[in-house]
């Protein structure tokens, strides 16, 4: 076993124990330790990715002395390592972006607990990505739920954050309840908890036709449970409140990464556990496709009506999640590749927009209303540029990241060539226009001179500028030289089986 | 050849523009200058009787070029135009004294002459269309000379009608270039000579239909200038508002340009044999006969003198078109004879009306009772002209009508053969109706109100008298004119 192969497991343990260590440290030391943990995880995942790309096939890491069906196991492939490095990298950048907000919003004695939550959250995300066992997945889904709700609740001084947390927690618990009962029924009819074994017995069941109805109910439960957790269209009511009222770095992490963790688990379950042909037979992909289309349209329409910049960005996340579910809904391999690409693109762009929004709040007296942040783009130049780059990438202008994922989504839709193609193309075109309809007026507000001159409350911290520079660099990198990343994702999907 | 072209087209245009110079602000000097120009132009016209053949002046694009041609029809209309412009020019020197900004009138007067000469000399469809458009553009300021509200809107309407007519002609041009081949005028018709097998073969039916549509478009388009039915509405509005000398030129000569254009298209492009007994001919004949009837009935009803004359010229020009539509030598000669007769007669009538308006201080036909005694010479000329127009034998009008009727009876295109002459006779009666009233009211009725009407000056009366004598001479010795137009039998 090559040393590099241990890195995924070590990164999970490091982040888990990191959370515990942070709880005892002081606020600023906790910050340093958390940076150390996240950078080491990032470096580890990149090395693992290099290793897996070189070997060209995914390997299984046995946790403990006993092989798979008995002991736990994590499976490390190209796609998993890409997602891992993406999650840790973006987590690091979002933290740096919103650092001074964290210390403003939390009590001095409790700011170290924020870093505990963040490291535990990254541990759960990594576990979700790597795990090869359903029940381990459920446990880390629970950690993820509590950690993300705690991230929103950290600004408990404002009533709206508390209310948002409660609504978010109840909706998530509904989702995990359905997910757990799904696992139980699946365990009952297949007798296994490990994904490979389940896959074999499910295919056998599918051929023989026994337990057909329970199997389809399991598929429904899984998709509904994870759809609720990842704010798919009909269950997205909690998202604007949660992401709109959390602190800057929390909203970046939540909308950039947490939603994607659940979607990645959904892809893993659909693709590896139950198998695409059965999913196709069960029509589950059509339901997700329709949810995706509605999300794209109605999410953007709601975003247009918003008067508050952060809630507008939250609604735009609902729309972007719609894009991803559209990709999954297509059901073909190209569709899932496009969905993964969009996960990466949205993970790069949305945190940048939230950090920029944080910068605007600094220069306009801490308010998020459009009326107050008029001309903020001129006062804080770097956030202004970051916002423009983010908006352009969301609209899908060439040279920016958004364009690449839109291209692959459209080609995937065209290759599918059925009634879904026309619906998908229409939805893509309309939602591009609707995206423009709320990003452009926002930019206009940000860049017209305000009537009254706003006091400059907070000199921008170096960390935030660094994170914004890296974000913009990443966006252009993904926009212009996306070919290697795309090949890696496609190779990962092929290997994912 | 090039010298004559410049002389006929470019010379009047340049002199026209020169009239704007301050040196010609003084009336007398300017009148002399214009008179000499018109005289020179008439001499040039006579010179070009010796010329023959055609040449390309300028290549606009691969199949578009400015081409000029000297042939019988062109020469005949040149002569007509030159003569009429000269007479009306002299008449206008005195008539314009009571109008304002005279230099501008003479500028556009000479420019229109240049354009008209261009139309007569045009050698292919494109040049014809080009000068046709220029003529309508340059003659428009003549109409709005008095610059009252009515005149401006009438001018706009005149312009738009002629531009629409010209664009229909352009449509015909496109169809012809695609389906017909080269658009240079060839006596006897391009289609008739080259593609005679078109009439027979069936699979070229589509091409034949296209050509027929093209012909009909051109006829209706250029017919607008000749006051034919669908696009005649501008004539009755434009003429009353224009100064008398302008309307004399307009209805006397510029309508003949429309006739020439149709003749070029029908006889020199499509060829009479191609169009003979096709739906185009029948539709055309139907339009002509309706115009003739409508023109004369409206003229009969009209009270304003100039408007009545305008309606009468609408119907008389359709006489000429009726001759063209006959597509045989007889009716063609009748048409050309009537063209000459009508332009002379109509000029006399308009000049008479002008002098009545200027010196008789009345515009309405029912208010000229007893003026004849005060203005004997004017009314004498008017009576002679109206007799000629109605077709009384010794005068010029009779011969042309005779040729027209015989031509249509010989060709007898199913029921049009006999319907044509009947309509002509009815309209001749109506013409008598609305023209004789002028002479009767003028001479036999007594004048109720005492008005200081007096006889027109010498400059106004001389051209009227000359034209009346011409009408008489041509009436008595018609073969003078028929020699001019013996090119006709090569065409039909």
């Amino acid at each position, binding site marked *: 076993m090559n040393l590099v192969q241990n890195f995924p497991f070590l990164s999970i343990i490091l982040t888990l124990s990191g959370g515990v260590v942070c709880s005892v440290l002081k606020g600023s030391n906790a910050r340093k330790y958390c940076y150390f943990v996240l950078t080491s995880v990032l470096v580890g995942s990149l090395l693992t990715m290099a290793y897996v790309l070189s070997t060209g096939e995914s390997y299984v890491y046995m946790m403990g002395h006993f092989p798979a069906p008995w002991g736990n196991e994590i499976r490390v492939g190209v796609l998993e390592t890409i997602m891992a490095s993406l999650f840790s990298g973006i987590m690091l950048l979002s933290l740096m972006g919103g650092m001074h907000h964290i210390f403003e919003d939390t009590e001095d004695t409790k700011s170290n607990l924020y870093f505990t939550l963040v490291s535990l959250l990254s541990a759960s995300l990594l576990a979700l990505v790597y795990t090869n066992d359903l*029940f381990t997945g459920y*446990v880390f889904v*629970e950690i993820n*739920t*509590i950690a993300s*709700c*705690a991230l929103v*609740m950290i600004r*408990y001084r*404002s*009533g*709206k954050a*508390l*209310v948002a*947390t*409660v*609504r978010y*927690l*109840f909706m998530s*618990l*509904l989702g995990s*309840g359905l997910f*757990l*009962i799904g696992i*139980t029924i699946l*365990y*009952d009819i297949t007798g296994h*908890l490990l994904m490979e074994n389940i896959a074999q017995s499910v295919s056998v069941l599918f051929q023989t036709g026994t337990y057909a109805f329970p199997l389809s109910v399991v598929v429904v439960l899984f998709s509904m449970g994870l759809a609720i957790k990842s704010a798919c269209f009909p269950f997205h009511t909690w998202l604007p409140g949660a992401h709109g009222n959390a602190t800057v770095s929390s909203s970046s992490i939540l909308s950039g990464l947490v939603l994607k963790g659940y979607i990645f688990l959904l892809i893993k379950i659909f693709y590896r556990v139950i198998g695409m042909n059965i999913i196709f037979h069960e029509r589950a992909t059509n339901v997700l496709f329709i949810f995706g289309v509605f999300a794209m349209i109605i999410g953007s329409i709601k975003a247009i009506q918003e008067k508050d910049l952060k809630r507008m960005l939250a609604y735009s996340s609902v729309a972007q999640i719609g894009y991803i579910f559209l990709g999954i809904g297509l059901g073909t391999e190209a569709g899932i590749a496009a969905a993964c690409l969009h996960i990466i693109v949205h993970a790069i762009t949305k945190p940048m927009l939230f950090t920029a929004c944080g910068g605007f709040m600094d220069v306009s007296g801490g308010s998020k209303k459009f009326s107050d942040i008029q001309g903020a783009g001129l006062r804080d130049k770097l956030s202004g540029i970051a916002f423009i780059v983010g908006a352009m990438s969301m609209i899908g202008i060439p040279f920016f990241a958004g364009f690449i994922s839109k291209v692959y989504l459209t080609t995937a839709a065209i290759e599918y060539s059925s009634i879904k193609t026309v619906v998908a193309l229409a939805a893509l075109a309309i939602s591009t226009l609707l995206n423009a309809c709320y990003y452009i007026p926002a930019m206009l507000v940000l860049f017209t001179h305000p009537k009254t001159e706003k006091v400059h409350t907070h000199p921008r911290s170096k960390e935030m500028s660094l994170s914004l520079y890296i974000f913009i660099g990443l966006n252009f990198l993904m926009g212009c030289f996306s070919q290697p990343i795309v090949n890696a994702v496609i190779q990962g999907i092929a290997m994912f089986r | 050849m090039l010298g004559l072209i410049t002389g006929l087209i470019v010379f009047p245009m340049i002199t026209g523009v020169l009239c704007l110079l301050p040196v010609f602000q003084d009336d007398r000097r300017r009148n002399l200058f214009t008179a000499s120009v018109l005289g020179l132009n008439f001499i040039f016209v006579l010179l070009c009787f010796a010329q023959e053949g055609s040449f390309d002046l300028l290549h606009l694009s691969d199949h578009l070029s400015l081409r000029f041609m000297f042939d019988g029809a062109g020469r005949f209309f040149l002569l007509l135009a030159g003569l009429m412009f000269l007479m009306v020019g002299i008449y206008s020197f005195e008539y314009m004294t009571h109008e304002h900004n005279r230099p501008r009138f003479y500028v556009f007067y000479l420019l229109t002459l240049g354009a008209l000469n261009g139309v007569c000399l045009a050698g292919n469809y494109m040049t014809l269309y080009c000068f046709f458009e220029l003529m309508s553009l340059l003659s428009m300021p003549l109409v709005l000379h008095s610059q009252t509200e009515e005149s401006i809107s009438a001018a706009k309407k005149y312009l738009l009608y002629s531009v629409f007519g010209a664009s229909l002609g352009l449509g015909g041009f496109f169809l012809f270039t695609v389906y017909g081949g080269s658009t240079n005028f060839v006596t006897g018709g391009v289609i008739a000579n080259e593609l005679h097998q078109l009439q027979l073969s069936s699979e070229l039916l589509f091409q034949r239909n296209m050509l027929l549509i093209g012909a009909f478009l051109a006829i209706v388009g250029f017919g607008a200038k000749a006051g034919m039915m669908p696009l005649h509405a501008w004539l009755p509005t434009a003429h009353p508002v224009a100064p008398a000398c302008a309307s004399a030129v307009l209805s006397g000569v510029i309508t003949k340009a429309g006739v020439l254009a149709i003749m070029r298209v029908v006889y020199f492009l499509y060829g009479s044999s191609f169009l003979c007994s096709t739906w185009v001919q029948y539709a055309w004949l139907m339009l002509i006969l309706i115009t003739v009837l409508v023109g004369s009935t409206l003229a009969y009803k009209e009270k304003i003198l100039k408007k009545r004359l305008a309606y009468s010229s609408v119907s008389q020009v359709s006489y000429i078109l009726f001759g063209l539509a006959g597509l045989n030598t007889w009716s063609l000669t009748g048409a050309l004879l009537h063209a000459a007769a009508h332009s002379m007669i109509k000029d006399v009538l308009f000049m008479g009306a002008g002098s009545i308006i200027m010196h008789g201080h009345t515009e309405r036909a029912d208010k000229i009772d007893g003026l004849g005694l005060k203005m004997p010479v004017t009314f004498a000329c008017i009576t002679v002209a109206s007799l000629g127009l109605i077709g009384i034998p010794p005068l010029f009008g009779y011969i042309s009508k005779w040729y027209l009727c015989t031509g249509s009876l010989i060709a007898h295109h199913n029921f049009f053969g006999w319907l044509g002459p009947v309509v002509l006779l009815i309209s001749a009666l109506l013409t008598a109706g609305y023209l004789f009233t002028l002479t009767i009211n003028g001479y036999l009725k007594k004048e109720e109100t005492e008005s200081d009407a007096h006889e027109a000056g010498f400059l106004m009366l001389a051209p009227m008298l000359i034209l009346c004598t011409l009408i008489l001479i041509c009436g008595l010795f018609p073969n003078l004119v028929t020699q001019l137009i013996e090119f006709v039998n090569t065409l039909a």
Partner: protein
Amino acid sequence: MIQLFINYYETVAVIIFSIGFTTMLLNRNLIKKIIGFNFMDCAIYLFLACKGYVEGRKAPIIIDGVQSMEAYINPVPSGLVLTGIVVSVSVTAFLLALTIRLYYRYHTLDIEEIIVLSKKEED
């Protein structure tokens, strides 16, 4: 239908699950929602626990060296239940803490009212 009576544990568990699920969805009172959540979780653990039971076998603690498969029931579900219970405890604690915090601030437990109050409070 008969199968329902044979698996009467699962039937009861499923009914309680649905009732818990709907109370959590339906009710406007926060405490009732939490009670609904506990209903739901306990029902799932009941469902999971009875999956492992095998007729006529004892709990999986090796007594006097007997290690044959037929002697003991399936240990996996009970292990999962143990983990599940701890999850429910911690989530309930978190929910109750949130409810206390909301009550101190808005003096009501009705989630709709709280939402209205929080909107009014801010602008």
